[in-house]
């Protein structure tokens, strides 16, 4: 590991528990109202840890031949879905890790899956197509062929699904089977997030820029100047600020007033290598960021995009995903070496907060 040495948790992050999975931990999330923390590794190992203690509740191996690619936890937390290189989507119940359904989509990778906000639909990306299944695993809807492989999906509401691919973002009404909106731009869109009200679409682009559209006004803008590809994007719960990666600093654009066009973004600098994941807390303007150097920081952001670090910890290796506990009392990180770490997130009472850097 270059550029950084291991350090003990600082600020509001406190020693919690840690565990190990067999291979590169690729997906994670909190299920059962935070009682369980789920982790999947690339080799197809699936693990459920007790949220509080880190005790292993159950585990399964080799769940997608070739490798696991994606996981989506149902909004109620009782079930979740996984997808992989075998072209299958599997539905599980969270308590005991029993597989309840296996959907064979086709020969090829299934890289993205996502439950709709109301939990009635599961969207599945298969190459240039998107399928929507209902709760019983029946195919409810299928998109037309996209011009290229679908790179990201997001639900703007429980009936409307957004897809991104090379050159366009498309909004589909999956209930009445129609295209609500198509936003075009000649560029390779590698990631996509929607603001919580669904009005702003932000996409990370291969050419080291972030492109976004306001659906209501049809206005679009491009934020350039990133040294790398901003694959990681996150909106806060109010849709005021957009945190972006693409370098070793977190660049935060504020949508206050007429922004972010013509404004200077906030820049959060403590990581020594490029950002590898970003996540906002469920309430408030708390951002967690992880980087390739294995460092994790939490930040308190202002509405103008400026922010200050309030906690930091070392996860040991490239942080592949980061997840706030449903009540924001803990922060979990998984890494490229199979490391799983959960820190308590709370104010330090006895010790004096330490500086950073």
């Amino acid at each position, binding site marked *: 590991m*270059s550029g950084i040495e291991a350090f003990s948790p600082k600020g509001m992050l406190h020693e919690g528990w840690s565990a190990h999975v067999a291979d590169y931990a690729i997906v994670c999330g909190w299920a059962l109202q935070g009682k369980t923390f789920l982790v999947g590794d690339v080799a197809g190992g699936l693990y459920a840890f007790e949220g509080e203690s880190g005790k292993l509740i159950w585990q399964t191996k080799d769940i997608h031949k070739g490798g696991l690619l994606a996981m989506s936890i149902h909004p109620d937390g009782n079930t979740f879905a996984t997808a992989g290189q075998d072209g299958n989507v599997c539905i599980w119940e969270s308590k005991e890790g029993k597989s309840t359904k296996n959907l064979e989509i086709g020969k090829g990778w299934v890289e993205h899956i996502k439950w709709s906000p109301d939990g009635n639909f599961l969207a599945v990306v298969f*190459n240039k197509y998107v399928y929507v299944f209902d709760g019983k695993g029946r195919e409810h809807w299928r998109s037309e062929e996209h011009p290229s492989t679908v*790179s990201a999906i997001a639900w703007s509401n429980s009936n409307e699904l957004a897809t991104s691919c090379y050159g366009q973002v498309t909004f589909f009404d999956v209930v009445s089977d129609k295209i609500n909106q198509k936003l075009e731009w000649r560029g390779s869109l590698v990631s996509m997030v929607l603001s919580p009200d669904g009005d702003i679409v932000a996409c990370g682009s*291969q050419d080291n820029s972030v492109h976004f559209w306001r659906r209501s006004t049809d206005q679009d803008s*491009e934020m350039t100047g990133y040294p790398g590809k901003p694959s990681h994007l996150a909106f806060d719960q109010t849709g005021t600020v957009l945190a972006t990666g693409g370098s070793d600093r977190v660049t935060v654009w504020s949508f206050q007033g007429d922004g972010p066009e013509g404004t200077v973004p906030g820049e959060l600098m403590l990581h020594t290598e490029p950002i590898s994941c970003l996540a906002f807390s469920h309430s408030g303007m708390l951002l967690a960021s992880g980087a*390739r150097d294995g460092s994790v920081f939490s930040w308190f952001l202002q509405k103008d995009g400026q922010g200050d670090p309030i906690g930091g910890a070392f996860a040991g290796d490239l942080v592949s995903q980061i997840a706030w506990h449903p009540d924001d009392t803990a922060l979990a990180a998984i890494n490229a070496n199979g490391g799983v770490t959960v820190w308590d997130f709370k104010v330090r009472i006895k010790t004096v907060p330490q500086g950073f850097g």
Partner: protein
Amino acid sequence: MSNKQKVPVTILTGFLGSGKTTLLNRILSEEHGKKIAVIENEYGEVGIDQGLVINADEEVFEMSNGCICCTVRGDLIRVLGNLMKRRDKFDYVLVETTGLADPGPVAQTFFMDDEIREEFSLDGIVTLVDAAHIEQQLGHSDESSEQVAFADVLVLNKTDLVKDESLDNLEARLRDMNRMARVIRSKQADVSIDTVLNLSAFDLDQVLQRRPTFLEPEYPFEWTGVFSLDKGRYELSLEEGPDPSMSLVMFLDQGKDETSLNTGAESCLRLYAEQEQPINPGDIVPVGKHVSLQLQSEGTKSFLIDVEKATDIGLFTQHTAEEFNLRITKVKASIAVDKSNAQNVSTISPIAERVWVAEHEHDDEVGSFAIERVGDVDPEKLNRWLSRLLSEKGVDIFRTKGFISYAGESRRIVFQGVHMLFTAQPDKEWGNATRRNQLVFIGRNLDEAEMIQEFDKCLV
């Protein structure tokens, strides 16, 4: 992550039917102890026997700025992005492209994408050529000439279907188009695995180790004559010729067998890269120096050669001896005073003669050439020129490779480019080695003379 070894990637290109799948199967079935992941793009050909094979549709993504060098293969970024997470499961990647693919975006993917660049290193580009059909293909599609131009290794396959003579012509044509590549002949893609994997073709140091001259040279001289001379003084005489001056290098103890001639040519090539020293008629020709015979005056021009003890001298001349009616005569003390008596002097015939394939006209639009110069360049001037050149001509310049000697820099600068992208990085110390510049350009309709001229302006 940075302390881990990057996973090498070989790109395999070639037209449909050139034998890519056969070669892939050979590589995968051979005992090489490697775990190879194959990203295959061509459906319909013979299936791959074993190994981790991933199918991906070729998705060439252009950027909004329209810049050709930013064009990448989106499918590769996606697939490799996932593959790199399971790096313990494989240690080599082969990317097969369709016959219609432009190799540029494939290669660029490994330079342009920050995450891919971090985990993978482009090891080399191997192009399979169907010996029986390539002539036809070269005439009909840009892709085939681009695939030839981009290659580090050209496998001339299905040679059993073509006559030897045609093969030689074909090979010469391919070398013209891409002098950087190594050409290997095969019948049924039966080439040894070492010739296509772990080439480190983008690691110039290794390229240099394997091939000291680095380039397949087109010699800047056309003729070599070896003359067996006893001790004494000789005259090197030239008549009126096509140019007012001619470069020449003279060596002592020049062997006349093929190997010696080639060795001589190689040493000579290095000397030719140095600034020539003009010498006038009547001057003595120095040994092992790049000289320019000044031939402006009318009539026969004679230069002197002094031989201390009997030796075979080798003359490497810019033009053929014939063009200037070049000859060597022994100067006899009595006659030397009276030059009018020249007909009494016996001309010494060479014991060996060799006409080199000189820098000749290229028939193909796609071609390559090298610049080789001793000395230092001004980094700012070079950067200005290259930036301008690549921004104006980058579309047509497929690959650039070489070493540069920056004035004031103790280390050698390694230069790599694919279209408009280029990197110039300090490499090892020059130490006692002669500081020189070696650059190869491969592209379409390159103006060689102008580029060399512009490069020369960057020399200190």
